[in-house]
Each structure stands twice: as structure tokens, then as C-alpha cells.
């Protein structure tokens, strides 16, 4: 049976991708952000995932406003990044796992989540930047991937509670997959930030720190907010917290916090990183790793 080894939530700002491309990781501006990922990468070496399910939002690369699915699941053998218009270098392609995708799709629809399935899907920076942070360097990505998109672009958005339940359904789907696979779930975006309007630049440190605390053991407390509450408390783009909630919902066991990092600002954003392990998996410690 497939196992969920854990979940990681991280910001996905395009500027991070540019900083990686320019090799700025050790610069004083960037160091507090990038340093947070060393522990995450060390944990990944122990956790040894085969597949990463990446829950994110598409910022107008794959989906335009002509068709805007609330929940969409990739079902392709491979995924490509592409030109997003403002100069981020295009990431190398990602392998998919179509068999697991279709299992997810079957299971989610049976579970009353009427998702859109996508046999072709471009993945944008919200998918590629976290992948580059977790597995830097070139060459083949060490995991297959399944992109899952939640609409946090055009209101009405799904509610935080609905996203948490969606994540739980993803967790059930993975847990019922007969193949022996180790699965990592990523939730990308956040934390507080706002790009548009006279309140652009809005950051709410107090609320972000509350989110980082609650996402570990009391995610239901965050799922009680409405989407509009999140806009008010975390900014227009702070609603990306819903991707974190879906990730957290997918974790099937008691979770253990491995690592967190919080740094203000990168670009216009208060950045967060959270690494969570499924505590019910005693086999995760691998003597050959470390």
C-alpha cells in the first residue's frame, strides 16, 4: 500500500526562482530564507518519497479565466513548465504518475469531490519553485509528481474547510493505493501577502505565526475561517493558506513537526516553511540515510 511519509508547506514566490537561477542563496537578503531548506532536504533524504503530490494554485499559465476549475488534478505522464511572461527561467520537465493520478481521480470523485481531470497541464512557478527548493541542482527530479490545483484566483473560492476536507480525501485516496509507494504531499503559497490595491504590501506576522502553530496539531482551527476572513487577515494572496490546509488534511496520521522557518520579507511576502512527518510511520528512519 502507498504510504504518506509527510507533508511540506512552503512559499512559492517567483523571485525565489530568479534568485536560484542567479545563485544568490548566500546573499544577506536571501540567506535567512534559503537556510530554512537545509533541514527540509535532510529530512527528505530520510523520508525517501517516490512521488510528490503538489497542491498549489495556477497564476494564469495553464488555466485562464475562460475555464476556472475549483479543483483540478493532473493525469499526465509528464508535465512541463513554460514562459510565464515575466522572465522566470523555465524549469526542466517533471515526470508524472498517471496510474496514481487516475486512482486519485476515481477515489476523489467517489468521495464527492467532482474535480477536473487534466491529461495535459502546464505547471507554473507555484509548482516548480518549491520543487527546486527541495531538490536543488540539475538532472532528473528524484520523484514523480502529481499536480493538484485549487482555485485561489477568482472568487468564489472554495472554503478553507472544503480545502481541508479535499486534502483528507486526497489522503484517503493515497492510503488506498495498492502499489508500494512513498508519497510526499506539498502545499505551496503563503503566508501573508497582498499584491494588489492600496493595501499592497500588507503582512500580518501575528496571524502567520498563529497559522504555523495551528497547522501542526489543530488545523481545524484554521479551517474555521472563511475565505474572506483569510483575505482580511492574511491579504489577497494569503488565501494560499488553503493549499497548506489541503496538504495538512492529506496527512493520515498524527503529525510531528520536523522543522519550520518564517522570514519577512521575500519580495512582497512573509515566507513560511513547515515540514511535517506522519508519526504513524516507524519505518521512516532509514539507517542508510542520515
Amino acid at each position, binding site marked *: 500500500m502507498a504510504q504518506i511519509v509527510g507533508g511540506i508547506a512552503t512559499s512559492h514566490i517567483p*523571485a525565489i526562482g530568479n534568485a536560484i537561477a542567479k545563485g544568490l542563496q548566500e546573499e544577506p537578503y536571501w540567506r535567512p530564507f534559503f537556510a530554512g531548506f537545509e533541514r527540509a532536504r535532510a529530512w527528505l533524504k530520510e523520508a525517501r518519497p517516490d512521488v510528490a503530490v503538489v497542491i498549489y494554485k495556477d*497564476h*494564469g*499559465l495553464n488555466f*485562464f*479565466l*475562460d475555464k476556472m476549475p475549483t479543483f483540478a488534478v493532473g493525469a499526465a505522464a509528464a508535465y512541463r513548465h*513554460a*514562459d*510565464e*511572461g*515575466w*522572465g522566470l527561467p523555465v524549469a526542466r520537465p517533471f515526470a508524472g504518475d498517471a496510474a496514481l493520478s487516475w486512482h486519485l481521480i476515481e477515489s476523489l470523485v467517489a468521495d464527492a469531490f467532482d474535480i477536473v481531470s487534466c491529461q495535459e497541464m502546464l505547471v507554473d512557478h507555484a509548482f516548480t519553485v518549491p520543487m527546486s527548493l527541495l531538490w536543488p541542482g540539475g538532472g532528473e527530479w528524484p520523484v514523480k509528481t502529481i499536480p493538484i490545483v485549487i482555485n485561489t*484566483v*477568482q*472568487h*468564489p473560492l472554495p472554503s478553507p474547510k472544503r480545502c481541508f476536507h479535499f486534502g483528507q480525501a486526497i489522503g484517503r485516496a493515497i492510503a488506498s493505493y495498492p502499489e508500494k509507494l512513498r508519497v510526499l504531499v506539498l502545499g505551496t503559497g503563503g503566508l501573508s501577502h*497582498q*499584491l*494588489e*490595491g*492600496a*493595501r*499592497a*504590501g*500588507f*503582512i500580518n*506576522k501575528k496571524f502567520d505565526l498563529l497559522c504555523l502553530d495551528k497547522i501542526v496539531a489543530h488545523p481545524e482551527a484554521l479551517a474555521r475561517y*472563511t475565505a*474572506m476572513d483569510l*483575505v*482580511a487577515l492574511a*491579504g*489577497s494572496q494569503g488565501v494560499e493558506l488553503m493549499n497548506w490546509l489541503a496538504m495538512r488534511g492529506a496527512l493520515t496520521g498524527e503529525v510531528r513537526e520536523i522543522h519550520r522557518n518564517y*522570514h*519577512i*520579507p521575500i*519580495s*512582497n511576502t*512573509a515566507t513560511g516553511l513547515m515540514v511535517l512527518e506522519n508519526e504513524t510511520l516507524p519505518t521512516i528512519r532509514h539507517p542508510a540515510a542520515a
Partner: protein
Amino acid sequence: MDGHSHRNIPGTPVFDGDRAQKGYALNKMCFSFNCEQNRKAFLVDQEAYCEKFGLTPAQREAVRKLDILAMIEAGGNIYYLAKLAGIFGLGVQDIGAQQTGMSVAAFKEKLEAAGRS
């Protein structure tokens, strides 16, 4: 959109169905800027490019002035507008400064200050 749970949050436009309808042509034009050829075509003749996508007069005027708040008022969505701004080398901090009436340096300082709070 009365009857839906929209809250009036000062300085915070909520991109909903009303705005999505109003801004469709503008956002569709900006979506086309994912393609380099289209970015070049826009720069060659901005007016003709706006015409091709059927922008409203208000949208055209906002694009002409590269006025982000006016584009948002005309239904623009920030993720699409960012693609237009990128053509002129403007990033989200430049856009943030413009919308808040601050210098870019002051806008960045405001963000840094949020970290120290």
C-alpha cells in the same frame, strides 16, 4: 455581489464574478503575454494590440498609462497584469509602490519593517 459573503476590506479589491466579467478582455490580452512573440507584437503597436482584444476605453487608457489601480478598477486581475508589467521590467514591488503611492525604496522598507515588528 450582495448576498454573497463579500466584505469591504479597505484597499483590497476582491476579484469576483463581477470583476472577472468586466475585465475579461484586458485579462485575456495579458494572458497572451505568456508568449514572447505576443509581448513583442504589443510593444510594436500597443494600440493595435489592445484593439485586437477589444479592450474598453477605460482599459486602454489604464494600459496606456500603465496605471495598475486603474486597470484593477477596470476588472484587471493582478496575476495577468503582472505579465503586462513584466514587459516594462516592473516587478511586484514596483507595482506595490505604484499602487500605494510610495517610492520603491519606501515600499521595500515597509516590508522590512513588518519583519521587525
